[in-house]
């Protein structure tokens, strides 16, 4: 079955610490992968997509086809990074999300 897995429900770090939010996918083909972010009481918005290979707000994500992973990383977390992060895969006309990881960055 096609699936996006985010193993951590909650990740709590201190400001300035490195952050890695894990995402694994299970697809028979080559899905397009995304990270979406939802700040408190706001709509979801795109953070990164794997095809663009860009860095947004200091976040990067590398696609590892061998490990079928698309982990999100940031070297130095900021308090304003506190939010819900969703990994998503677009394949076969659908956009499937993982269950999300809540990132809390404490001062």
């Amino acid at each position, binding site marked *: 079955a096609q699936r996006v897995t*985010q193993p951590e*429900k909650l990740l709590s770090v201190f400001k300035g610490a490195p952050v890695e939010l894990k995402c694994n996918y299970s697809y028979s083909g080559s899905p*397009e992968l*995304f990270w979406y972010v939802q700040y408190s009481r*706001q*709509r*979801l*918005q*795109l953070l990164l*997509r794997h095809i663009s290979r860009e860095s947004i707000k200091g976040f990067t994500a590398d696609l590892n086809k061998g490990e079928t992973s698309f982990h999100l990383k940031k070297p130095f977390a900021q308090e304003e990074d506190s939010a819900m992060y*969703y990994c998503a895969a*677009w394949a076969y*006309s*659908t*956009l*499937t*999300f*993982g*269950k*999300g990881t809540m990132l809390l960055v404490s001062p």
Partner: protein
Amino acid sequence: DAGITQSPRYKITETGRQVTLMCHQTWSHSYMFWYRQDLGHGLRLIYYSAAADITDKGEVPDGYVVSRSKTENFPLTLESATRSQTSVYFCASGGGTGAPNTEAFFGQGTRLTVV
């Protein structure tokens, strides 16, 4: 204004009533989606549509009906609301002819409470 809008933002209804949540996008995106967001479950796909008059079931379609007679509108109807359908519902749109894989834009959500 350009964008994707959902209405209503908040809705309280009684068990057994029919409820329709509206979604409208101004970009002429081909794809539209309905998700429900619940604690511990993340975003689960209810229904999606690849184009006008083409809809398909997602992960949790039971109890819901959709239609897409026009590209810009994708209403979601709860035929007979149940308490388990209390949730936050998000509509999204994205993609176009020849470019199916692209960013999806989300509405602001509808918080539905079934009492």
